[in-house]
């Protein structure tokens, strides 16, 4: 029945682009609960199913907890599965996230990044998915609609690899990517079929040979199973890099593997960010380099597994690392990316002693204009000279003085 969806280059909403990409992966089962700003994705997918344009089974549920639980069962039965959610919906899935990863089920889920309540707010930051960083899901962060399409297909290839067999979150910025119309190359079904083999699960539920998934395990075994998930995460590093290169060979587009870099060679100041903010930062880097500022950009594409080795290679000879975090780990005063880069530097066993400046930006949809980044870079210049950085800070507070 597939083939009814048009492929090729056209101007579409980001949500439609990801719905189309998910459809091209031929998921056997889709289950999701609508929540702003994810709604358009699942509306589009349920429309595809209703129109007979795709053969997927769409399971309507009463909550996100049930949506992901339905996919845990489906995936354990050997189905390719897809969901999408955001913010409070992702939080409601919290305990099922651990189960999906612990049972090694390669579910793919789009996270339309949105802030966490309270105060309730529907706009973008990365708090929802960053808060789920310890659940055992691979997390990929996306810069624009085309990368979103292409990474959705890569996500199945990565997660379903038998050495990995883990669920994958593809994280896109709410509204900024989900509700914006962009020119996008929508993928052709035949080319996706060539790129992405059919899902062949390591083990699957079979009535002829009954098995129990996610069974009770006592202290004799539990810790060892957790270590196996960590090993699988580690194995996914190479698979993420390989999937990006394989996609490049098939479709001619590449966005980096675990990370991407822009003008980082020899740069004294290195900006670090995830998601659509990277697009803004590319413009800032272009502008500042024209003015003679030695600045480069490191995009974190995979936040889980955390690509510390790749990051260290890039920042080794820099004078200062500037991390822009769209999340705050309350009680530490800084965002998670800042903390993890600092931890990785201390643990590197090398003599890299580059100062790391953390900036919490853009929470709950607050804009991050070019001028803000320029002010941050101006501060970074003084740290590059002194070699001493201070505590992380909240940028652009409006109604409070810091």
């Amino acid at each position, binding site marked *: 029945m597939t083939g009814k969806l048009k492929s090729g280059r056209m101007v579409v909403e980001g949500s439609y682009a990801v719905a189309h990409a998910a459809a091209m992966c031929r998921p056997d089962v889709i289950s999701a609960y609508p929540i702003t700003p994810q709604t358009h994705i699942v509306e589009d997918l349920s429309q595809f199913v209703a129109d007979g344009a795709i053969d997927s089974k769409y399971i309507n549920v009463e909550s996100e907890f049930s949506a992901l639980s339905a996919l845990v069962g489906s995936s354990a039965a050997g189905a390719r599965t897809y969901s999408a959610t955001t913010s409070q919906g992702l939080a409601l899935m919290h305990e099922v996230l651990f189960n999906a990863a*612990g*049972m*090694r089920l390669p579910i793919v889920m789009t996270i339309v990044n949105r802030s966490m309540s309270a105060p309730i707010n529907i706009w973008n930051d990365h708090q929802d998915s960053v808060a789920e960083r310890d659940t055992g899901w691979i997390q990929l962060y996306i810069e624009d609609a085309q990368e979103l399409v292409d990474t959705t297909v890569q996500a199945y290839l990565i997660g379903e690899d038998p050495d990995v*067999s883990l669920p994958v979150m593809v994280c896109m910025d709410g509204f900024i990517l989900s509700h914006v119309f962009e020119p996008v190359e929508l993928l052709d079904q035949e080319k996706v079929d060539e790129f992405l083999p059919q899902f062949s699960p*390591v*083990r699957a539920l079979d009535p002829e040979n*009954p*098995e*129990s*998934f*996610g*069974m*009770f*395990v*006592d202290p004799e*075994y539990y810790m*060892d*199973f957790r270590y*196996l998930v960590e090993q*699988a995460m580690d194995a996914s590093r190479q698979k993420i890099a390989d999937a990006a290169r394989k996609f490049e060979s098939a479709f001619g587009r590449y966005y980096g593997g675990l990370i991407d870099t822009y003008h980082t060679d020899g740069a004294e100041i290195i900006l670090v960010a995830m998601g659509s903010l990277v697009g803004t930062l590319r413009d800032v880097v272009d502008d500042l380099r024209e003015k003679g500022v030695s600045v480069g950009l490191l995009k974190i594409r995979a936040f889980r597994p955390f690509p510390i080795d790749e990051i260290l290679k890039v920042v080794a000879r820099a004078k200062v690392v500037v991390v822009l975090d769209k999340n705050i780990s309350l009680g530490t005063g800084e965002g998670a990316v800042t903390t993890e880069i600092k931890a990785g530097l201390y643990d590197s066993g090398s003599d890299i002693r580059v100062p790391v400046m953390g900036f919490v930006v853009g929470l709950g949809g607050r804009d991050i204009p070019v001028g803000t980044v320029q002010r941050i870079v101006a501060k970074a210049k003084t740290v590059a000279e002194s070699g001493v950085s201070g505590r992380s800070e909240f940028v652009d507070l409006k109604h409070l003085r810091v």
Partner: protein
Amino acid sequence: MTLPYAPIGKPGSSVANKTGGWRIFIPVFNAELCNGCGTCETFCPEGIVHKIEGGDTFIADYDYCKGCGICARECPKDAITMELEEK
């Protein structure tokens, strides 16, 4: 021993975990007082109180009885007493 890549096992394997080991107090069934009403069997949250073979009175499967004491509490004839178990 090698582990499978995920916690997957044969169904029904939880019976291998003999939870009777968690017990501190053990229900002792007095057949003399028991009138065979079956209240203990009905209330047992583990479903392991049953009629003795060939008789009309009741007993627990001590391999799985966790010693919660609900059967003793509910017995209308006070035919079940919870006693500290020596191990």
